[in-house]
């Protein structure tokens, strides 16, 4: 039996808790950005995802993603119900921590990914349809992609695609799914007019919680309390900071004010883009990645505003485009001087790595787009996706949950 390491185990368990906090943090980030009549429903989307995917992951999600490989495509049912996932390590994934700690850490990634999508269909999706969509999407989209990229024997992992903490698995998949969901659902009533965020203090609190949790997301992905975790931690922080500075600067220049919303959005863009690269690049490269991502995502948001797709909280331009930028720049800036288990990128004499990253990005875009559309059609065949016009006017808090957020 492999020997457990107390420090590694403690760090991964704490990291799992940090990543868990990101999901309600995301709820507050999104909740601050919607109108007052929809804040509870938005918070509920994230909290419910935490509950339902926690159970789905133990029962069948984990084994589909990380179970013994079947032709590089999917995990088999050996770990159904966490069967065999206990105190002993699984050296295929992490030799010094309990297999259960690894599975728990991965659970939190599976939880937040469908929660990220909810920003696209905020303020108009029926709760029951959201419930069914989340379970089906996690099973048919997230679990297979996680296997391809992170599973032992997964075909993209075998090709050498690099994704340290989820640029493709989490952010591209959720971003592309968000675009498809927003398109299928159609725009909100009054889309195109101003839908002002109801509480920017809540939005910034949420962004702060997400940033804090992201240290577990990225540095925890080292799966050990070691130097690589420290580098990933530094990279995460500095990319978020540079993203915030760059986005704020563009907003100040183009819109006339250094808005609080711009620093929050920029920090999130930087965090997303550094996610696939955090354990493969230098801190200097992380600064560049954060800044480039902020510029790219800002342009994508402006472009999205001209499209007739009401991605309410800009999930696609930030997560989809930010994840894509990060995945591709990983193929540029990666160096084995940081992580010997990784690869060199374009700047270090290995242009092939960029092509592999491009292939992984393209595959995840296409698979997610097609399968998300299919899942939405399945849900539509069972129940309506959207609330009625009257329910939307009244707000989802009252019409879906029979509660109001604030006393009057």
């Amino acid at each position, binding site marked *: 039996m492999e020997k457990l390491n107390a420090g590694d185990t403690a760090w991964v368990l704490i990291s799992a808790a940090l990543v868990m906090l990101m999901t309600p943090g995301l709820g507050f980030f999104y909740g601050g950005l919607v109108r007052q*009549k929809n804040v509870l429903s938005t918070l509920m989307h994230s909290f419910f995802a935490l509950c339902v995917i926690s*159970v*789905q992951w*133990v*029962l*069948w999600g984990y084994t589909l993603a990380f179970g013994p490989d079947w032709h590089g495509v999917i995990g088999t049912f050996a770990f*159904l*119900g966490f*069967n065999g996932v206990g105190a002993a390590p699984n050296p295929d994934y992490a030799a010094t921590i309990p297999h259960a700690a690894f599975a728990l850490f991965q659970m939190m990634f599976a939880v937040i990914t469908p929660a990220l999508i909810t920003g696209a269909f905020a303020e108009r999706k*029926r*709760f*029951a*349809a959201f*419930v*069914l969509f989340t*379970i089906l999407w996690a099973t048919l989209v997230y679990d297979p992609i996680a296997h391809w990229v992170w599973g032992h024997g997964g075909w993209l992992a075998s090709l050498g695609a690099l994704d340290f903490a989820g640029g493709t698995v989490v952010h591209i998949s959720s971003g592309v799914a968000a675009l498809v969901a927003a398109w299928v659902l159609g725009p909100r009533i009054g889309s195109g007019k101003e839908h002002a965020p109801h509480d920017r203090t809540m939005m910034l609190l949420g962004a702060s919680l997400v940033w804090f949790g992201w240290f577990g997301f990225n540095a925890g992905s080292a799966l050990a309390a070691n130097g690589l975790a420290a580098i990933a931690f530094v990279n995460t922080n500095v990319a978020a900071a540079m993203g915030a500075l760059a986005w704020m600067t563009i907003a100040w220049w183009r819109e006339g004010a250094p808005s609080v919303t711009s620093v929050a959005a920029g920090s999130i863009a930087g965090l997303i883009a550094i996610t696939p690269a955090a354990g493969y690049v230098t801190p200097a490269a992380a600064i560049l990645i954060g800044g480039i991502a902020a510029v790219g995502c800002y342009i994508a948001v402006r472009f999205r505003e001209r499209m007739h797709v009401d991605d309410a909280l800009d999930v696609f331009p930030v997560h989809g485009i930010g994840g894509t930028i990060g995945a591709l720049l990983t193929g540029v800036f990666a160096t084995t001087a940081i992580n010997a288990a990784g690869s060199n990128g374009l700047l270090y004499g290995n242009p092939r790595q960029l092509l592999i990253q491009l292939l992984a990005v393209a595959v995840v875009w296409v698979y997610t787009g097609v399968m998300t559309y299919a899942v939405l059609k399945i849900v539509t065949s*069972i*129940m309506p996706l959207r*609330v*009625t016009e*009257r*329910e939307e006017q*009244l*707000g989802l808090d*009252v*019409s*879906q949950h*029979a509660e109001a957020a604030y006393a*009057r």
Partner: protein
Amino acid sequence: MDIVLALGSFLALVATWVAIGRRAEPLQLVTALEEERLDAA
């Protein structure tokens, strides 16, 4: 055996959510008074 029971319980929950989702008229939860208040707000 415990896995079968847990799986069955969860799938029963999902089936319940689907049944409620197909049947429910959430707006019925909103009283006429609340509608008036929200419209006025």
